[in-house]
């Protein structure tokens, strides 16, 4: 699933990423295993050399160019449509620059023409949407060219950790279930509204007219104490595939595939 050489390169690049402060460094370090894997899954640039990163945090962003070779990196971030930030990051061997457009990924038209990108990365975003997740997938499809790729990462609520917590009965089965403490005068960032099982993620992406290239999960180290439960699942005849806490999905846009705007497992009638 992951090329070990690319994974190692990505980890090193992330570790030496210039960050503004110690807090940002701590956050980055915690998420390096996931971010490095994300980078390792990024396919080589296609005909346009353009990539769109939704929920752009300037972590993997510069590396999409420096490591993965994309000519133009564009970011999308939640906010009032029409505003675009220019972001700059200084590396020892030069400057990385990109534009980050503000829009609401589940409501606003993405401000790009049809077929504009080779790749759309939606890392850890679909679980935060409050109204219309299929909108995001369908707009991603629109701005991709035929054969372009969509990379989605999100927690897996069908993981062995979710099993452990549900069997125990006390704790919440979601991988992440915390609210952010409200800060006076600022809009609170919304937590995980809906987590997906790995199967649900695949079905949602397929419903948006993509063909799945890779759909799998990996385990997150901090939950390793739940791993023995895999044996229990197996002994009792339950599926042990795709029980890691982190879901990965890489899918290809195929114009010939049908679209299901409102899959029954995501929307009520």
């Amino acid at each position, binding site marked *: 699933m992951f090329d070990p050489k690319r994974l190692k390169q990505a980890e090193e690049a992330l570790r030496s990423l210039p960050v503004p402060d110690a807090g940002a460094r701590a956050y980055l370090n915690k998420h390096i295993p996931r971010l490095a894997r994300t980078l390792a899954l990024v396919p080589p640039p296609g005909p346009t050399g353009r990539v769109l990163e939704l929920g752009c945090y300037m972590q993997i962003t510069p590396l999409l160019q420096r490591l993965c070779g994309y000519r133009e990196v564009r970011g999308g971030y939640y906010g009032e449509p029409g505003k675009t930030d220019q972001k700059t990051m200084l590396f020892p061997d030069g400057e990385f620059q990109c534009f980050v457009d503000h829009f609401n990924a589940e409501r606003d038209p993405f401000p790009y023409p049809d077929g504009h990108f080779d790749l759309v990365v939606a890392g850890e975003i679909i679980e935060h949407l409050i109204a219309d997740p299929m909108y995001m997938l369908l707009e991603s499809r629109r701005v991709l060219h035929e054969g372009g790729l969509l990379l989605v990462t999100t927690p897996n609520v*069908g993981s062995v950790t979710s099993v452990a917590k549900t069997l*125990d*009965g006390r704790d*919440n*089965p979601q991988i992440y279930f915390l609210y952010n403490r409200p800060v006076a005068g600022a809009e609170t960032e919304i937590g995980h509204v*809906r987590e997906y099982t790995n199967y649900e993620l695949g079905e949602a992406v397929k419903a948006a007219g993509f063909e799945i290239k890779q759909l799998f999960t990996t385990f997150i180290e901090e939950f390793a104490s739940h791993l023995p439960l895999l044996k229990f699942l197996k002994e009792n005849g*339950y599926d042990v595939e795709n029980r890691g806490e982190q879901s990965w999905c890489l899918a290809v846009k195929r114009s010939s595939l049908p679209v299901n705007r409102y899959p029954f497992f*995501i*929307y009520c009638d």
Partner: protein
Amino acid sequence: MTELPLHLRAVRAALRRLNSYLSRRYESSVARGNPMPVSERPAELDAAEEQLRGLDLPAGDNREYFLKHLPRLARTLTLVPPPRTSGRILELGCYMQITPFLQRWRGYPDVRGAYYGPPGRTDRAVASVRGERFEALIDLFDAERDRYPYDDGSFETVLACELIEHLLRDPMHLVLECRRILEDGGRLIVTTPNVASLTSVARVLHGYDNPQISSAYRRPQADAPEEAPHVREYTAFELREALEAGGFEIDALFTEPIAELEMNRPMWNFLEDHGYNSSLRGEQTYCVAVKRSDLAVTRYPRFLYSE
């Protein structure tokens, strides 16, 4: 839904059969009567249902919803204690379903409603029970952000039914505002789905379906505001912890099965057989909590907020 090719439909049908087999096989393999003990049905419950059936609702979506949720609404009504002091009761997320019966049947002279909306506005809502008109004032505000427009200690009972699971930002604000406007010894009644129910167990073991009782978004409507789906469902244990953190003492905490999810009942035997806790496993949680002024408050419980 798009029609799949025949061979894929066959695969899907097989998977569905396997799914129901996996969750039901306990029925056949364990020769035990009715799994999961269910709390005794109080005589009051029948009376509550009988009352509720008197609500005049034209045939349509609302009536269908009402009838589907009748068992929960009836159970909720039975949890409302008789008025003892001010006779004032507040229903948060007021849909004018149980609302008239808080007065007519439970005997509260002063029933107030609240609903999500811009603070400062008060609507007059009307319902009818067996042809008899009932009116209530409904104050609009955001239950997880605004200060509730009521004085300290001004209610003896507050209802927050099927509401806490929809909050996007700050559920403890709701719990603490309820505490503020309740008199000492006043009761807060909370109902919410149970995300550690037998249905959640069945789904998570199978691994394909979402463990939340409801994980569906509303289809977006052109002019209507977005309505948040279930943002965070609670285990019964979590609900207790949240209310205790809000300075309440738990008077009653129990769960009940939801009829349409009955096929997952055999999972109770699975839990028992493998030594897992089998209590509080119904899909619907009910909690009655008493405000105690002398209890400490935790504004940000660790299981609910990040540091």
